[in-house]
């Protein structure tokens, strides 16, 4: 499908271009991009797997005032059960009476299970040069345990249904100085910003599945493992919206909506992207 999208973008560009020289130049650059994509999508050389390994150590490390590991953390399928947990997140948790995504849940477990002060963890929510991120590593580890499984977020609890409905409203909500919403860029197939292809996330189906089945991902351009929280943070930055609060409810609502659009997608993470 990715290829079909790229091909349709090429076809579109070809039809729109008046001069044949431009068509050739356009075609060549699209081919270069495709070659690059193939080159980087090799799991054996994906540095995102280093994050998975670091995450495993963090998951098993005794920390906090209670000196326990995260192995007692319930991600929805029971304490310490990791296989398939990410495929069903975000979800409603009875103990908090809230719908939480993986990052909110991990923070809750750190605070309540380990007695860990999460201030430092939150300060390092996104890694940077010389700054490792526990959250990115833990998400990589936990999400990787759902590889080969299908995205299947529960939508039976009223709060899960509310999240999905609010997420949809937020997806279409325009704002900021440029009047941008998520849907400005992600509501039509085969479109690009500059040369960057854009998935259509406005309707359920393949494009949403391919997108959501590949997060978390190793971003080559950033040299870092990134989670959906980071993706949404960066989208809102480009949308000219204010800084979204990390692990807050509107981001979880959007994630529920996007996971709903991507239902049935096979998870294969960490993926590797531009």
């Amino acid at each position, binding site marked *: 499908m990715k290829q*079909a999208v790229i*091909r*349709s*973008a090429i*076809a*579109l*560009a070809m*039809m*729109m*271009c*008046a*001069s044949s020289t*431009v068509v050739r*130049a*356009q075609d060549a*650059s699209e081919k270069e991009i495709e070659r690059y994509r193939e080159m980087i999508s090799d799991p054996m050389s994906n540095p995102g797997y280093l994050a998975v390994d670091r995450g495993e150590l963090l998951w098993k490390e005794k920390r906090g005032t209670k000196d326990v590991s995260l192995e007692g953390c319930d991600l929805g399928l029971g304490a310490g059960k990791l296989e398939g947990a990410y495929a069903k997140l975000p979800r409603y948790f009875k103990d908090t009476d809230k719908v939480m995504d993986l990052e909110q849940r991990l923070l809750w477990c750190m605070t309540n299970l380990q007695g860990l002060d999460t201030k430092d963890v939150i300060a390092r929510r996104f890694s940077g040069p010389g700054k490792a991120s526990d959250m990115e590593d833990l998400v990589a580890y936990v999400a990787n345990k759902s590889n080969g499984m299908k995205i299947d977020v529960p939508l039976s609890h009223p709060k899960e249904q*509310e999240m999905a*409905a*609010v997420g*949809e*409203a*937020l997806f*279409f*909500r*325009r*704002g*900021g*100085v*440029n*009047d*941008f*919403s998520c*849907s*400005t*860029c992600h*509501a*039509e*197939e*085969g*479109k*690009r*910003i*500059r*040369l960057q292809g*854009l998935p259509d996330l*406005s*309707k359920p189906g393949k494009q949403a599945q391919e997108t959501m089945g590949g997060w978390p991902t190793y971003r080559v351009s950033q040299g870092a493992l990134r989670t959906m929280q980071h993706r949404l943070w960066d989208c809102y*930055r*480009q949308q*000219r*919206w*204010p*800084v*979204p*609060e990390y692990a*807050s*409810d*509107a*981001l979880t*609502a959007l994630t529920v909506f996007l996971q709903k659009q991507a239902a049935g997608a096979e998870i294969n993470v960490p993926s590797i992207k531009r």
Partner: protein
Amino acid sequence: MTNTMKIAALALAAGFIALPFNASAQTAPKSADPAIVDAYVKATFGKAPPEWQERIVPDETLKTCNAFHNNVPSKEADAIVKRELAKVVYPADGKFLGDWKEGRKVANNGRGGQFSDKPDTVSGGNCYACHQLEKSEVSFGTLGPSLTNYGKDRKFAPDEVKAAFTKIYDSQAVFACSSMPRFGANKVLSEQQIKDLVALLFDPESPVNK
């Protein structure tokens, strides 16, 4: 391949008739309670400085666009166009054409207005993100229609020049719930920057028309 061509043809058609970008969402949205949505917005953006939060409070126009996922019925569309047209401030000197070379810089500049930008950053129009303009630039987006030969195709007609100024100043003064930013009305671009962009489109010497 049939599907691929179909997608491309659809996208092309959508581009030509200049529908709002998500015109494909045709089902009436089952809407969440606006008060609940606002509470979520508050939970996530409530710690931002007040002037930043004001920017995401939808005005009357955006309220309508949001409610209909931009596919507004004609009555609401007419009301939006009327309201937005009243916001357009035309140049006092009556001159719409600036310097196309400056316009080219504005069209290429995607900075400004992001929380990662310094507050004094001069905003660009970032036209190339969505539009093709001069033919030698191959890195262009396709969310909006191609603007290649824009002035030439319109025979450099003065009423078209004015219409382009209007469109850039406030896209919704021309087309309700257009995805394009309201650059002048939202004070993203200055009058001079808009004039320079109009020149990029309409100056016979501009590479857009070559």
